[in-house]
Structure formats: C-alpha cells, structure tokens
C-alpha cells in the first residue's frame, strides 16, 4: 500500500519536468487542427513528426546531425582544453595571471559572433571557420570558472595539506584540482550551452551541411516543418549535452553532499 503510493509519487516526480512541454505540444496541436494557426506559419506537431520521419528515412537528418555534432565536439575540445589550460595556469601562478589575465579579459568582451565576417575572410565557409567560432565561444566560460575554482580552494585544506608534507604535483592532484572541480564543471555546463548557440548561428550564416544548413535550405522551399525539425533537434542535442555534463558532475562530485542522498 505505502510502497505503491510512494511508487506513484516517484513516477509523478519523474514525469513532472515534462508536463509543461507536453501541455505546450497539446495546445499547439489543438491550435493547428482547429485552424487557429496557418500550417505555413507553424505546422502542427504531427506534421513536424511526419517531416522528421521522412528525413530519417532518407538519411538526411543523420548526416546533418553527425556533421553538426562533430563540429560542436571539435570546437568544444579545442576551445575547452585551451580554456582549462589557461585557467589552470593563471589560477596557479601569479606571474601567469599578471601576464595573461588583462589580455584575456579584454578579448572576452568581444562577442564571438562579432568575429563572423573576419572568420569568413580567414577560413572561408568550410569546417575550420565553424570550429574556430565554437572554440572561441567555449574558451571563456571554462577559463573563467577554472581560474575562479582554483582561487577559491579552501585555504584551510591547503594549509593542512602543506603541513602534512604535500607540495608540488601531489598537492595539485590531491587538493587543488579536486577543490576546483565543482567550479570547472559549472564552466563545462556553460560552455556546452554556448557551444550550440554559436554553432547554430555559424551554420545558419554559412554552411554546406549540418542542421543549420538544413533549416536554412528548408526556408528556401518554405518547408516550415523541416525548419521546425531542425530547431527541435538543437533543443534535443542541447538537452543531451546537458545530461552528459550532469552525469559527469554526479560521478566526479559524488563526494559532494549536494550530489548524495539519492
């Protein structure tokens, strides 16, 4: 009896984050089928699902998703590792901070998307342009959060570790890095969000393939349903990236009280 009830509550708890989405889709479908909204402006959810199915059958969608994901991943790896590296350097060494931080803070205030004209001039419209833009975009959240994470490691723990004979790499590995990790992971989540935003814009402006290209191409032929499939794909991929980051946090921060107890 009690377990059945708690099971049901558990179920509801799992489902509740999806309730607003489901309600939204239901209202949308209702509006379309009642004719309140022209299908040319916004096709019905069923129409979008149909378009998704056709694109899946033809294989177009997977080719484009693959291209976009690879771009995102490449940009994330390049920009992210640079951001992490610079953050570790400036966070750990005072001289590195004085050397780099001013410049980086200045560059940080340039929106990566403002670089698009220049990037097209430099790289043309091939892969490197998009990867470059994503790299620039994800660099700063990771840089800033890594720097902040290292600087905010508990002084008491550092003092304790030093007095227990730790220094150099062991001190870094056992105390500084794990202490900075929660902040670094916040940076990773910010970066992942930004990664998709920048990629979308870059692909929409200039691309021969990818989800952005697919949506822009659909606009030429007034295929609003395909455009919507593209937009929803971004939402799904963004959510997937977030889930991944969340999973990593859960694993790496399993010692952290706020990640325990379930």
């Amino acid at each position, binding site marked *: 009896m009690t377990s059945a009830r708690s099971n049901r509550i558990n179920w509801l708890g799992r489902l509740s984050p999806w309730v607003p989405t489901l309600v939204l889709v239901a209202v949308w479908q209702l509006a379309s089928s009642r004719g309140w909204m022209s299908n040319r402006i916004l096709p019905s959810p069923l129409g979008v699902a149909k378009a998704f199915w056709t694109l899946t059958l033809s294989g177009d969608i997977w080719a484009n998703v693959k291209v976009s994901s690879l771009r995102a991943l490449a940009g994330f790896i390049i920009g992210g590792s640079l951001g992490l590296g610079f953050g570790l350097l400036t966070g750990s060494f005072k001289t590195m901070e004085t050397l780099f931080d001013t410049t980086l803070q200045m560059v940080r205030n340039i929106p990566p998307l403002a670089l698009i004209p220049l990037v097209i001039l430099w790289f043309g419209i091939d892969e490197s342009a998009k990867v470059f833009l994503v790299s620039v975009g994800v660099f700063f959240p990771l840089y800033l959060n890594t720097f902040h994470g290292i600087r905010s490691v508990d002084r008491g723990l550092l003092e304790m570790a*030093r*007095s227990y*004979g730790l220094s150099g790499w062991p001190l870094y590995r*056992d*105390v500084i890095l*794990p202490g900075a*990790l929660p902040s670094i992971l916040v940076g990773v989540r910010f970066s992942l969000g930004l990664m998709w935003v920048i990629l979308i814009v870059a692909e929409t402006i200039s691309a021969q393939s990818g989800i952005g290209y697919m949506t822009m191409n659909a606009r030429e032929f007034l295929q609003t349903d395909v455009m919507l499939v593209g937009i929803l794909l971004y939402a799904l991929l963004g959510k997937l990236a977030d889930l991944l980051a969340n999973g990593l946090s859960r694993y790496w921060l*399993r010692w952290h009280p706020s990640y*325990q107890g379930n």
Partner: protein
Amino acid sequence: MKQQGMIIQHSGRERDVVWAAVRRASLVEQGRQPGIAVQLRGVGKAYGEQTILRGIDLTIPPGELVAIVGRSGSGKSTLLRLLAGLDKVSGGTVAYDGASGAVSDNGIREDVRVMFQDSRLLPWKKVLANVALGLPRSRHHEARGVLEQVGLADRADDWPAHLSGGQRQRVALARALVHKPRLLLLDEPLGALDALTRIEMHALIERIWRANRFTALLVTHDPAEAIALADRVLLVEDGAIAMDLRVDLPRPRALGSAAFAALQDRLLRRLLQSDTAPGAEPVQDPGDISLQRSISEVRWAI
C-alpha cells in the same frame, strides 16, 4: 524523520566504538617514538603593527602534555602555529631537541603534526585515503591500523561528509598519528563537539598519548579539558605567558575529585580576571598572582 533516527542510533554506537578503541589503543604495541623537546627563547610574533606574542620563554621536556588556555585573541593559537611552522616567528628562536635548524624548505618538520579545530578532511577522498594523506606509498597500509586505533576501521570506505563531527575529528587524529609525530599540536580540536563526545575524546587522546609518549601541546578554551589532560597548563594573556600551572593529579583523572575541582577553580578564576585587568603589569610570580589579584579586588570592592 528517518535521518534523525539514524543520528541517535549513531551516537550511541559511536560511544561503544570509542571505548573499545580506547581499550585497544593501550594494548597496541607501537614502535616507540620518544617525544621531542621544545625550547622557545624570547619568541615574538607580530602581524604588521599588531603584536600578537612577545617574549615567550618556554621549555617543554620530551613527552610532556602541555595545555595552553587563554581568552580568544590572547595569542594561544598563534603560539601553536609558530611551533607547527605554519607561521614564522618575528623574533626569538624555537629549538627542537636543542637544535633550531632541521626544518624543510617550507618550515614544516616531518615529526610535527597538527590537528586543527575543524577536521580539515579532504571531502573528495574516502576516510582511509584521508588518513594516508602525505604518506609515502610504501607506508599506505599503516593507515588502516591507525584508523582501527581510533575505532573507525569500519568507516574506512565512507566519504567524510557521512561522518559525525566526533568521527571526523577521530579521523583527523588518525591522520596525524599515522606519521608517528614526536610533537602533536592540537588546536582546539574538540571545540565544536558535544560534551559527551568530548569526554570520550579526552580518554582516547590520553590513552594514545600514553601509549606513544610523544610531546603534545593542546590549545583549548576549556579549563576542565586542560586539567583533565595536561601535565602542565599555561595561561596566555595579552601575548605573554601569565601563568604556568603544574597538574600533578594521578591518571586517569577523576573529574569530580576535590583536587581537580580546586585546580579548575583556580584556573577559571585567573582566566576570568584577565578580562577585568586591562593593561596588566608584567607578572613576576605567575603561580600566586591569582591570590594577590583577588585580595586587591576585594579590598577595592569594600
């Protein structure tokens, strides 16, 4: 609800485990490490303009357990930090075993270990890894044995966040002991614990100290704790040692005995005075000052 129940059950079990550990600790045959002799000559410490300690002369023979009491801000913790090498002296000399050298580059000695007020366990390492912190890999196996000494062998694979305050301090104690320190510095390690856990920790610390014979320095704000544990109680006041009280009670000490109560009363009175006597003149004979002070105060009151 559920969690509350767990805590209650927990502290009951904890007590049993501590007593078991206390009994065991005295039986465990340790590699005998004699304590270190500490000698301070005219030691002072100032942060910028502010003088925290001045002209401290102090000799601690090997194996002695010394308690330092004083009001907050009196400089008692600073004195401990100087001995630990966490801070550098501004003047005077600190000598260990008669030699003032023999410290590593960062001023930390390998045979001196500190137990802090907060346990300062690394939250991302399990209990056993915390105890083994700073040990060379070849000695990692010793961590489990010491954890057993403090009665927490069964919690070796837990995260520190899952331990109670008393358990955390016992892990911190194990972490210090595994290095076989010749001087153990305890910076109000029991300040945040409840009364019962404190009494159990007193017994644990006393037994481990007696089994290992290291020199120990305990900073505390609690006169009863000082007298329960120490061979000698130092009162630090306005950056100087104002009283040096020898405690010659037999161990283990009965907290309720008349001699205990008399010493505690004397210490407490002297501590309370240190507030009412601002800018007190240098003390010539620390042993009897409490009596003189109280007489002069009574006369003033009349």
